[in-house]
């Protein structure tokens, strides 16, 4: 009979602090859970009293990896609240920058964090010797996506130029053309990535769950749209709480969420499952090559879905730049608006999944209440449910392997725990 005691404190190669606790006595699972042990940061509490103009800059600091995503969701909320209508150019630039972040985050996750698991390394650093081409590819694509964010927003981590109503800076046509040429070149890197990840021995594991994402009929949804689930539900963004149903759990600084079932999953795999038809044809081809045919129920394949999304974002970025250039890029001031007492919810599907920012402003545009629901939190219950199903299937394997597989499962979710820990506010009135 197996007796197992795994306690992986501070799971590595994830953004943020999490621990896996497993306790098995004589083949009986006593304990199996993923804890978030990170220091809570209390964003919702301390944005109260801050002016609307600061909100996107403050909340971008929730997470250094999805800074653009937080800033964009935050601006979505504020702009909705203030009734701002973005110009077409600003809308395109927001999308373009968002693509930059998706690529940036996914390349980091797939190459730096996940690939070492399959290539028998503890980190990306030894791969510089053993898989130099792959590492250089990753560095190249990471630089490209970072530069794409930078020409629009100044930098990728905590972009400076995003502001309510648009941007404080407009990229030059020459910069756009140069980055477009690099995106075109990156197609080869995308093809190579698809080949590489298609060749990896993904762990065999299936557990069907509910997949939640944003959806738009006319494009693969990242910013705005409606909230849909693979169980057939659909909600306007404003009704996000009907989906999330948060609760505090004692061993975690992250709050858990559930909807139609005990748990649901968000992120690249959820988006791919819900929005496969809106993917760029090249991305659809990549999905086929990676064996991703909706509904995909192996959570490990979330990383493969990220590769598909990279392909999509590269292609769509090339297209957006074409559109921008054919319209002609002009410096423009942020759209005008009037500050008034309002409330609104913004939502984006950031690299790790759907994200909600909900603000209430007083008549001076001072934030009086805020609620941010972060993808990693929403995945927490599902990850734990996966672990409970996976563990019995692998219990007979050596302890190191069990530990490794559990860690890989955690990593597959790409948990950005640093953001999940700033959980969330009690009910709105």
């Amino acid at each position, binding site marked *: 009979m197996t007796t197992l005691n795994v306690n992986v404190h*501070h799971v*590595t*190669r*994830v*953004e*943020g*602090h999490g621990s896996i606790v497993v306790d098995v006595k004589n083949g009986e699972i006593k304990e199996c859970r993923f804890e978030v042990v*990170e*220091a*809570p*940061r*209390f964003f*919702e*509490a*301390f*944005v*109260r*009293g*801050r*002016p609307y103009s*600061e909100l996107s*800059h403050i909340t971008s*600091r929730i*997470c*250094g*990896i999805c*800074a653009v995503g937080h800033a964009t969701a935050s601006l979505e909320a504020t702009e909705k609240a203030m009734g701002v209508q973005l110009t077409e150019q600003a809308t395109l630039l927001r999308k373009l920058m968002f693509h930059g972040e998706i690529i940036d985050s996914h390349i*980091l996750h797939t190459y*730096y*964090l996940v690939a070492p698991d399959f290539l028998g390394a*503890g*980190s*990306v*650093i030894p791969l*510089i010797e053993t898989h130099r081409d792959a590492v250089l590819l990753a*560095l190249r694509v*990471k*630089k490209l996506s*970072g530069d794409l964010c930078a020409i629009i927003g*100044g*930098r*990728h*981590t*905590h972009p*400076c*130029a995003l*502001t309510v109503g648009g*941007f*404080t*800076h407009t990229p030059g046509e020459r910069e756009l053309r140069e980055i477009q040429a690099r995106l075109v070149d990156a197609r080869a890197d995308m093809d190579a990535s698809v080949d590489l990840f298609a060749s990896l021995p993904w762990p065999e594991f299936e557990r069907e769950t509910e997949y939640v994402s944003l959806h738009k009929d006319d494009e693969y949804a990242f910013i705005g749209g409606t909230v849909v689930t693979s169980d057939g539900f659909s909600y306007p963004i404003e009704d996000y709480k009907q989906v999330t149903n948060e609760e*505090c759990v*004692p061993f975690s*600084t992250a709050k858990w969420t559930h909807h139609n079932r005990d748990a649901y999953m968000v992120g690249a795999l959820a988006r791919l499952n819900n929005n496969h038809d809106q993917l760029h044809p090249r991305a659809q081809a990549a999905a086929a090559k990676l064996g991703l045919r909706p509904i995909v129920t192996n959570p490990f394949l979330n990383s493969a879905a990220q590769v598909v999304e990279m392909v999509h974002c590269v292609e769509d970025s090339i297209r957006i730049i074409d559109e921008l250039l054919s319209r002609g890029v002009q410096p423009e001031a942020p759209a005008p608006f009037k500050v008034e007492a309002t409330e609104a919810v913004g939502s984006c599907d950031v690299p790790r999944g759907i994200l909600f920012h909900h603000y209430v402003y007083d008549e001076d545009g001072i934030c009086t209440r805020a609620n941010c629901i972060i993808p990693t939190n929403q995945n927490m219950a599902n990850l734990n449910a996966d672990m409970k199903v996976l563990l019995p299937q692998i219990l007979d394997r050596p302890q190191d392997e069990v530990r490794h597989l559990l*860690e890989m499962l955690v990593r597959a979710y790409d948990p950005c725990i*640093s*953001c999940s820990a*700033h*959980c969330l*506010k*009690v009910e709105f009135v």
Partner: protein
Amino acid sequence: MDNGKPKVAFFDFACCEGCQLTVIDSLQTHLDLLDAIEIVQFREAMSEKGENYQIAFIEGSCTRQEDEERLHKIRDQADIVVALGACAHLGGINALKNLHPLEDVRKWVYGDKAAWYDTYPARPIGAVIEVDAFIPGCPIDREEFVRVVKALLLGTKPPIPDYPVCVECKLKENVCLFDLGKICLGPVTRAGCNAICPSYGAACEGCRGLIPNPNENAMKDVLAKAGLTVEEIMSRFTMFNTYQLQERMAEEE
């Protein structure tokens, strides 16, 4: 130092990990960093964990009792401790919570479960352990990080400027935001970021902290002339510098 390279470890406390990400990003242009130093711990990017390091880069603020123990352990091991980024250097954005009563903050977020979550006012790590150097910024500047690593290798003083952002902003020939009717904290904020925010038309928010000898009265004067109320002025300063301002107020009392 078996292979002659100094062993370097990265640690994080309450933060967004954007600074560590910036460190990872610095490899895009400075892959030779890995020839010069040996990274033995970097949770965000590697599974291996070496406890034998000489240089510790610490990201994030100290916000809990248990953080202090960890910080002391790092201090005991490392020859050189570097505060990495605004959270570690200043308390940064985390210290915004210090503007509210602690109990209120906990209850606000966790409701009746507040007692489960340990927390105290956010502090820069320099308030807990001795820090040998700091790299300011939210996030840090990639090139500045590389410069500091070189200085540590060379055994010289890390080249962190003492002058304000305006110097770099002017050298870049940006249109000053005051000329565009905006309000910028550049005149009192430490340079080194290459004036990135003003270069992108956005006001400096002071993430690198005040310069050593700022003329705050002149700043307040100018902001007041620009039509800002006292609350608005304070709000500008507190975004990243709450801890420093509160310390100063406590000193004055």
